[in-house]
């Protein structure tokens, strides 16, 4: 295969290897993404992913603060028990993990959905 000259608006120098078919397809996709129209989609994807991450992180931190406040402000938690274990230990020692897992699962689902929407927009098959 002969060397193909890359004419896409690359800002980095292309590597000195021969381009395979897959690579030139990738290069043309990069070119499309770096055009002004492509960048509108890219920027909106980045914004929605960042917003999603911040919302999930903020929600999780709020729950964490709520746990801390309950532990600190509600009297008598250390005396009440669940199945023989003190309530404050159960709350902090086991109760936060399901919240963490649920937040992570929600995030992954929504992030994948954002990416699928982006694929649709740029016409990736």
């Amino acid at each position, binding site marked *: 295969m002969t060397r193909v000259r890359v004419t896409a608006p690359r*800002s980095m120098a292309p590597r000195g290897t021969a381009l395979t078919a897959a690579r030139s397809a990738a290069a043309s996709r990069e070119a499309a993404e770096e055009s002004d129209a492509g960048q509108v989609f890219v920027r909106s994807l980045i914004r929605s992913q960042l917003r999603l*991450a911040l919302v999930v992180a903020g929600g999780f931190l709020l729950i964490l603060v709520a746990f801390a406040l309950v532990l600190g402000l509600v009297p008598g938690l250390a005396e009440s028990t669940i199945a023989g*274990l003190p309530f404050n230990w159960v709350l902090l020692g086991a109760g936060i993990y399901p919240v*963490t897992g649920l937040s992570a699962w929600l*995030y*992954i689902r929504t*992030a994948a959905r954002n*990416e699928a929407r982006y694929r649709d927009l740029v016409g990736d098959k």
Partner: protein
Amino acid sequence: MNPVVGIAAFVAVSLATAAFGFYGLRISRTTGDFYVASRTVRPWWNASAIGGEYLSAASFLGVAGLILLSGTDALWFPVGYTAGYLMLLLFVAAPLRRSGAYTIPDFTEARLDSRAARRVTSLVVVMVGWLYIVPQLHGAALAIRITTGLPAWVGQVAVVAVVCFTVIAGGMRSITFVQAFQYWLKLTALAVPILFILFMLASNGTPAAADAAVNPTGAPAAGPYQTISLLVALLFGTLGLPHVLVRFYTNPDGQSARRTTLIVLGLLSVFYLLPTAYGLTGRTFAPGLAQSGQADALVLLLPGRMVGGMAGDLLSALVVAGAFAAFLSTTSGLVVSLAGVISQDLLGGSVRGFRWAALISALVPLGIASMTDSLALAGSVGLVFAFTASTICPVLLLGIWWRGLTDAGAIAGMVTGGVLCGGAMVAGSVLGAAGTPSWLALPAAWTVPAAFAVMVLVSRATRDRVPRTITRLMTRLHTPERPLATER
């Protein structure tokens, strides 16, 4: 404790580790194999390996010890260690994988287009790694001393020797198998004895936790500042840990990096119930350990104390094996990632260079560990988290999400965070545990914002240094991979 038990457990774990290392020797041939296991590790394997690597001496021994000492205040440690992975998932996992970089310095160089930023990052990564290996070796010293009565340095040297052999023999491919195996070993080693103890207590009719509110040392409760600063360090420190991040490069694509992180969260959540149970049981039935300054050995001593006889010896052997798995896996993970950084920057990136770099990365902390004394394990690892949260974390977060970050800003921020947090650590060790005010003992609450602020302000002032490749890079970091053209 019967010294034969401890020695037998250590030898068994070392042999198993070495066997996996040898198995890896036969299938890793190329430089790519050594560095990132050719990026084809399945999410379950990878997640087990991350769990194996992450659950260090601090998690295996330190958390239970700290819970014994300070009760519910210490429960924030496992919460923070786990929630750190949530932050990693939200802000770093997929973009970092898509960056295609091998190491954190690779990432900063690609993002900032600057050799200088790369060198500063390499320096920080090496410091973090060494700081993190030292408490592992302290843990090994403690375990050897408590379980066999041998001098403490034997444990440190043995751990370093096994790690060097495994890493030099097989590189990351075998390390992945070793780490995955060690997660499950650690889980079993903690779960079986504590379940045995709990069933025994239940059948004796003893209430599971009669007076957990008892405070064995009479230490004051942590104030809001301590809790907040600890959580800042743990939440943001995890996403800067070099040995954890290097694992993400072994995922095939960004979405599988996310799935891996989700599995890791599950594995950690299950694991951390166990040290909590040890701490609670220890607080109820063995508060004497806290007064005699042996809190970190609680996990090792509890099965023997509660059960006794032959069964007690067997359970102790299991726990000791798990503890050594913890020292070995975290140390070898750190040595691999440090060796990757050192060999790429100093030794030309060859397999031979990687082996030399591995030796250097293990021997320096051995020297430091043999010259210093063990602090509370969970506390000293918490300080390392504060250090990464003030240095590597801001570079990653701003580099991934903010187009305006420049090389000058990144360097200024890392230096600020490193100097402030490093200074606090040095001041803390000079003043001693009793004389250190809490804002110096837990510095993350002010060093992390300071590093972020300096990074943003200097980047704004050097706006013209934003690399010209930024558009292409942000596109690469955040857009999903195509199904076929994954490697370019």
